[in-house]
């Protein structure tokens, strides 16, 4: 805080006793400290987020150290705001402690079952999904929520429900003696199971569980009368299909009627205490206390065909084929191996050529009965010996399977069904462990790679690691996205949030320019699509239709299909499935997510802060408020005054040393009375004719809907916003906090004759519209700033620009430019409906700017 010291030094000395209350410099020092610490927290959060992309190797220690740092910084912020506004926001300490406890619990590695409802719908976003609903449910939830594939309608009974069931029915206590005797070897697993299972079957469910299940089942059945009325009830234990497979340890019940769901729930939970399951957990040293069984209840799909797909044939992985088994009707007989099934072996690459079609005679199919239950029916004789799937259907299923495999980065075992409407539904996915077989296939990866033609390497930055193979598809304009084919490699010049639309269908992304910390990177991480940005050459070297393989880890693009890379990836444990990755994601939710957005909202309170980011956001807002509302009459030199301008800026100015030439005691000042050099230049720029757009902008409905987290007060022209802007000034200094609409703009500048001390810091974040438009405005700002010699950093919609050590005259020019820029871009996000508009507005602004420059020069 060398600057603060300078400012304090510049202030006129006062007689003792004047500082009966806190002197303003101290208050302002606290304020500046809050801003700086706030920036540090945001940067730390962005750094932590970047680590999810996979280009960095980090360990648990890193996560712990980063969390400690974040907590420390946020604690400082809370302390500072409570100094600035003595004891006004003590509630923040409670909010902080709660978040801290959650982070610490995450870091301790203990099993933390999240506080969820007992029952949650299948097609809903779920946080900490693995712990909340078990591995199997969580994976299917990702297939639906991230990959956008169809899964059966249904609901999940959470791990929380299991825990409360055990508690409520006194099961832990009653099981304890049996488990002890079993562990000590006094009774066999068989005997233990015979004692334990009846306890579960007779256990009383916690209040609300039965009702919750009934309500969900009812709403499913009443929503869609076409749906069949019976359920599949599946186990989804914690750790099931995770590091250990638990394959076939737990029970799945099919054809369960709604009225029998609670009993089916108990049966599936009880299967956790089968002799086999007990043995298995003992063998793999799974602590009984760490066992939690969530359950999935799916409406059964009335399938015309169903079966299993392995994305790599386990019997002959070296042949590099997918294997589909298929039969008519429900898949259960095929899965259980009770019915003869067709077997198709197909290529792993689009267009998924069929190598072999082993079709068997299928004279029976298991069907769902309209009144509930299942029954075998005879297959029409002309269909008996026909394949259950045609080649078009096979290709569609194969493409879905590859999408699932690419996401989970290991070969997959997928249960599927083809419904009566001809749509595929994914019933269950689990990893297929073929590591040892695949390792033999790869042999010496380095030797293989040496033989492959490289198109370019070592260029750009990896935004999401991984291997991707496919044909190049070049996107030049937004319209090009409409034709994006499944499984292509997206090649484009700029990163644009628009690309998010096709991301989940892409096998990889390469861009010429862009940042690994931008919005595109976030989407790439969400969909786990291998992405290299800022390659400089992608659109020049890669032609449409060219088959390429990208290694977004070693940062190489190969010509042709290098399938060995893909298999080599199968031999690794996917980073995205590692404990460290999941831990980092989890703590980031407690640190970096933002829930508090609208300061006008009645819930904009310390109590509503659920993450560290919420706290910093809250404090920032309140710190500005505190300065604006300070009662300054005790130190006349630092009175807060309103600036009268031609534009409705609503700016409160606090002078801390020769920044204003106004008579003492006046509450209002004019631009002419501003003697602060940087402030005057900025304000002149802002209020130049024609720059401040006066047309009120209407925000269209789509934009409203996409900013779902914002509870909306007609913000753009809202008088509430006016007057919330603050400038602290001295002759050489300006600290400006602007909130115009929903974006935040901080400008901090020191301009004097001492060239080496001169600097301008510009920071811009947020907006009212959807992320895509806010990002476009960010790109616009980035361009303008860069063209005007600012050093810039862009992360999503955050833009920071810095410039320093220029002579005063040039610095003041930059301030005037910033003034124009702030006025011009104030509502620009609303207008930025497509990427082309970035350059249109860029031209327009530069024209206006040049006009003013030459006018000033003339």
């Amino acid at each position: 805080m060398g600057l603060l010291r300078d400012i304090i030094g510049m202030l006129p000395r006062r007689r003792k006793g004047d500082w009966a209350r806190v002197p303003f410099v101290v208050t302002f020092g606290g304020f500046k400290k809050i801003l700086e610490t706030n920036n540090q927290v945001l940067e730390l959060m962005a750094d932590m987020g970047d680590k999810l992309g996979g280009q960095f190797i980090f360990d648990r220690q890193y996560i712990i150290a980063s969390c400690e740092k974040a907590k420390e910084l946020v604690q400082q912020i809370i302390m500072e705001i409570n100094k600035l506004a003595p004891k006004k926001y003590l509630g923040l300490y409670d909010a902080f402690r709660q978040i801290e406890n959650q982070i610490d619990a995450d870091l301790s590695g203990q099993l933390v079952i999240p506080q969820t409802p007992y029952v949650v719908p299948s097609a809903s976003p779920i946080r900490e999904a693995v712990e909340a609903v078990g591995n199997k449910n969580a994976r299917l939830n990702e297939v639906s929520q991230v990959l956008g594939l169809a899964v059966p309608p249904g609901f999940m009974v959470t791990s929380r429900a299991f825990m409360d069931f055990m508690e409520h029915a006194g099961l832990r206590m009653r099981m304890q003696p049996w488990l002890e005797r079993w562990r000590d070897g006094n009774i066999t697993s068989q005997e233990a199971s015979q004692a334990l299972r009846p306890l579960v079957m007779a256990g009383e469910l916690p209040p609300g569980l039965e009702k919750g299940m009934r309500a969900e089942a009812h709403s499913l059945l009443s929503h869609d009368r076409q749906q069949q009325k019976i359920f599949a009830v599946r186990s989804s234990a914690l750790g099931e299909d995770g590091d250990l497979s638990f394959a076939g340890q737990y029970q799945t019940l099919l054809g369960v009627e709604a009225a029998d769901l609670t009993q089916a729930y108990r049966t599936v939970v009880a299967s956790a205490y089968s002799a086999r399951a007990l043995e298995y957990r003992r063998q793999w040293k799974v602590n009984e206390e760490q066992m939690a069984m969530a359950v999935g209840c799916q409406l059964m799909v009335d399938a015309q065909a169903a079966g299993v797909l392995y994305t790599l044939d386990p019997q002959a992985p070296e042949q590099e084929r997918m294997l589909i088994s298929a039969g008519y009707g429900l898949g259960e007989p095929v899965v259980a191996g009770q019915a003869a099934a067709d077997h198709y072996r197909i290529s792993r690459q689009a267009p998924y050529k069929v190598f072999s079609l082993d079709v068997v005679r299928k004279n029976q199919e298991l069907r769902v009965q309209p009144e509930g239950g299942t029954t075998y029916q005879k297959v029409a004789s002309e269909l008996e010996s026909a394949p259950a799937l045609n080649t078009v259907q096979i290709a569609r299923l194969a493409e879905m399977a590859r999408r699932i495999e690419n996401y989970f980065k290991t070969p997959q075992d997928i249960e599927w069904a083809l419904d009566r409407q001809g749509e595929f539904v994914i019933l269950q996915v689990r990893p297929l462990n073929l590591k040892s077989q695949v390792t033999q296939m790869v042999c010496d990866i380095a030797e293989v790679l040496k033989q492959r033609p490289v198109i370019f390497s070592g260029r750009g930055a990896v935004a999401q690691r991984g291997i991707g193979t496919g044909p190049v598809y070049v996107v030049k304009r937004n319209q090009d996205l409409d034709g994006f084919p499944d499984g292509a490699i997206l090649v484009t010049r700029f990163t644009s949030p628009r690309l998010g639309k096709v991301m989940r269908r892409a096998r990889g992304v390469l861009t010429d320019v862009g940042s690994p910390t931008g919005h595109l990177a976030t989407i790439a991480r969400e969909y786990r699509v291998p992405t290299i940005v800022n390659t400089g050459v992608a659109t020049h070297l890669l032609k449409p239709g060219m088959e390429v393989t990208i290694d977004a880890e070693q940062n190489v693009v190969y010509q042709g299909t290098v399938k060995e890379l893909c298999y080599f990836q199968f031999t690794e444990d996917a980073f995205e499935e590692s404990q460290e990755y999941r831990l980092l994601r989890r703590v980031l939710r407690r640190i970096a997510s933002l829930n508090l957005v609208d300061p006008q909202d009645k819930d904009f309170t310390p109590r509503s802060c659920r993450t560290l980011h919420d706290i910093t956001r809250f404090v920032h807002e309140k710190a500005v408020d505190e300065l604006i509302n300070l009662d300054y009459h005790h130190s006349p030199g630092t009175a807060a005054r309103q600036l009268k301008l031609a534009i409705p800026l609503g700016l409160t100015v606090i002078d801390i040393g020769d920044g204003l030439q106004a008579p003492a005691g006046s509450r209002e000042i004019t631009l002419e009375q501003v003697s602060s050099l940087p402030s005057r230049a900025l304000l002149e720029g802002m209020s130049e004719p024609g720059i401040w757009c006066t047309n009120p902008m209407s925000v269209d409905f789509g934009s409203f809907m996409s900013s779902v987290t914002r509870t909306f007060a007609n913000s753009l022209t809202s008088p509430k916003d006016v007057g919330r802007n603050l400038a602290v000034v001295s002759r050489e200094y300006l600290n400006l906090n602007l909130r115009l609409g929903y974006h935040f703009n901080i400008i901090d500048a020191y301009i004097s004759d001492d060239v080496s001390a001169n600097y301008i810091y510009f920071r811009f974040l947020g907006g009212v519209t959807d992320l895509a438009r806010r990002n476009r405005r960010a790109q616009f700002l980035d361009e303008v700033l860069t063209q005007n010699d600012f050093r810039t950093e862009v992360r999503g919609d955050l833009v920071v620009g810095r410039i320093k050590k220029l002579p005063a005259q040039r610095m003041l020019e930059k301030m005037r430019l910033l003034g124009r820029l702030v006025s011009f871009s104030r509502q620009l996000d609303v207008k930025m409906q497509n990427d082309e508009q970035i350059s249109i507005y860029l031209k327009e602004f530069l024209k206006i700017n040049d006009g003013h420059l030459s006018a000033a020069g003339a």
Partner: protein
Amino acid sequence: MNGEPKTQILILDDEPIVCRRLRPSLEKGGYEVETFIRSDEALERVRQKHFDVIITDIKMEGLDGLGFLAEVKKLSPGTEAIVITGFATMETAKRSFQEGVFDFVAKPFSLSEIQGIVKKAEQKALQNR
């Protein structure tokens, strides 16, 4: 396959994730890699086999990274060592082990960063041979 022998690399870090992620990346680069999460086991291996480059963490249970490196240097002076450690322990590491360490890398590090350093260490190690 050509006959050129591969450069041998040993990685020692008690956090398995570091080994798990470094290994495939270096293998793709044409190195032969062995990984250990316990220093005594790693040391046992160094007694049996020559490694050109060793990548090790500092803070570990039992024999720590510095102790491990001291032993390695006695056994095979031509081996080049790269120390990877957390930001917090970096200064201590640098102070207490100036000599005989090819380079220090702060965790977290990017794959391209470590690959660049390994390449340089390899060149030096090959001269030592």
